């Protein structure tokens, strides 16, 4: 079978896998942004308990491999607590928790990078902490963190491939199944790599444009 024929025979399956990869990434990132913001606000809170919760969350996630987190969730937790969870749900939870911890640190770094005088100026005008944060600090912090957030988006997209290990039928897993049938690992994995590359390149370009827009508003 030529490469053309091979591709023709499996492109639909690969595209289905790619679609799931994108969908999983999108859902995970939405949850991760929410989680990351909550954890970030905990980490800069004046309440010690909230700071501790954020610290532990970030340390545990950063200190363990994503694969182990997914295994623990999908096999370990379901067994221990005796309930069922499908691979896609487990994948979204694992990816969200994972990216959320990294985003939490990115957001915190962004807020800390805004000059302290900004908060003082806003507060000295009588603005309460919340308004000052929302209208003065965060708009500046967002511009600062965009490149790192984009980077995290790309990492999360690629990390979906790790979840093939718990059987999520995303791009990498579809490829593994095809290779298992026809042994054409060189062509299939090469094709998959190019697919990731194309998607990520397009995504980076789009986000670059968004970043530029935000910066010269």
């Amino acid at each position, binding site marked *: 079978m030529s490469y053309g024929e091979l591709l023709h025979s499996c492109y639909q399956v690969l595209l289905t896998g790619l679609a799931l990869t994108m969908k999983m990434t999108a859902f995970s990132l939405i949850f991760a942004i929410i989680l990351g913001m909550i954890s970030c606000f905990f980490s800069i809170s004046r309440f010690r308990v909230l700071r501790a919760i954020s610290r532990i969350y970030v340390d545990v996630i950063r200190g363990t491999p994503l694969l182990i987190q997914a295994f623990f969730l999908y096999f370990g937790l379901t067994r221990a607590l005796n309930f069922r969870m499908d691979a896609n749900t487990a994948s979204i939870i694992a990816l969200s928790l994972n990216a959320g911890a990294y985003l939490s640190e990115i957001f915190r770094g962004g807020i800390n990078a805004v000059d302290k*005088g900004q908060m*003082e*100026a*806003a507060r*000295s*005008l*009588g603005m*309460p902490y919340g308004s000052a944060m929302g209208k*003065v600090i965060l708009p500046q912090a967002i511009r600062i963190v965009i490149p790192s957030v984009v980077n995290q988006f790309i990492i999360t997209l690629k990390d979906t491939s790790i979840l093939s290990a718990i059987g999520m039928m995303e791009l990498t897993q579809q490829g593994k199944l095809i290779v298992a049938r026809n042994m054409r690992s060189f062509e299939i994995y090469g094709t998959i790599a190019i697919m990731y590359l194309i998607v990520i390149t397009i995504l980076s370009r789009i986000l670059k444009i968004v970043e530029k827009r935000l910066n010269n508003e």
Partner: protein
Amino acid sequence: MNKVHVENLHKKFGELHVLKGIDLDVEESEVVCLIGPSGSGKSTLLRCLNLLETPTSGTVIVDGTELTNAKIDINKVRENIGMVFQQFNLFPHLTVLENIMLAPVDRGKFTKEEAEKKAMELLASVGLSEKRDEYPKNLSGGQQQRVAIARALCMEPDIMLFDEPTSALDPEMVGEVLNVMKKLASEGMTMIVVTHEMGFAREVCDRVLFMDGGVIVEQGPPQEVFLNPQEDRTKDFLNKVL
């Protein structure tokens, strides 16, 4: 009644004892200049007057409100106390007009239309009407500081605090900021100014306070303090800066 009343104010940063028992009264429309070597506690004293620093002990009463009482609404009090910073601290993501309008609109002091009208009046008074839609990064230091003064004035404060307002400026821009401050003083604003501009202190202030080592060493009308200082530490300092 005095606009500002400070009694036995102490401030410590950990082991560092920065303010060691400050007593200060400022009357309505009085312009008071704080001078002294760096590290003497001038800025810390100023920042205790709007609680950007929390006093360790002592009493601070501004406009009849005791700031050192935990139950007050500090945001309400701060609306009445404008502050101008050494580094201007304009909001870089907002235009000049937006910088000035942000707090009054956020606090419900003015509607957007009222705030814009007020902001344009203030911009005219600091001579920057044509810069309304510029971002701070496109302004010179002197222009930024004048916008910062307009921003503070838009809350219609009774008292203005200036924390070394000209120290970060190129020499040729100091004058334009001092002129705005002189005008403000002549209009009867109560002002407390931390400054290294001895010319301004001499010309505009009603009273000069010399601080060193966390205490007020000497105070009086500028002619007395500058021409006939009583304390050795004051003489020493003035010899260095004049």
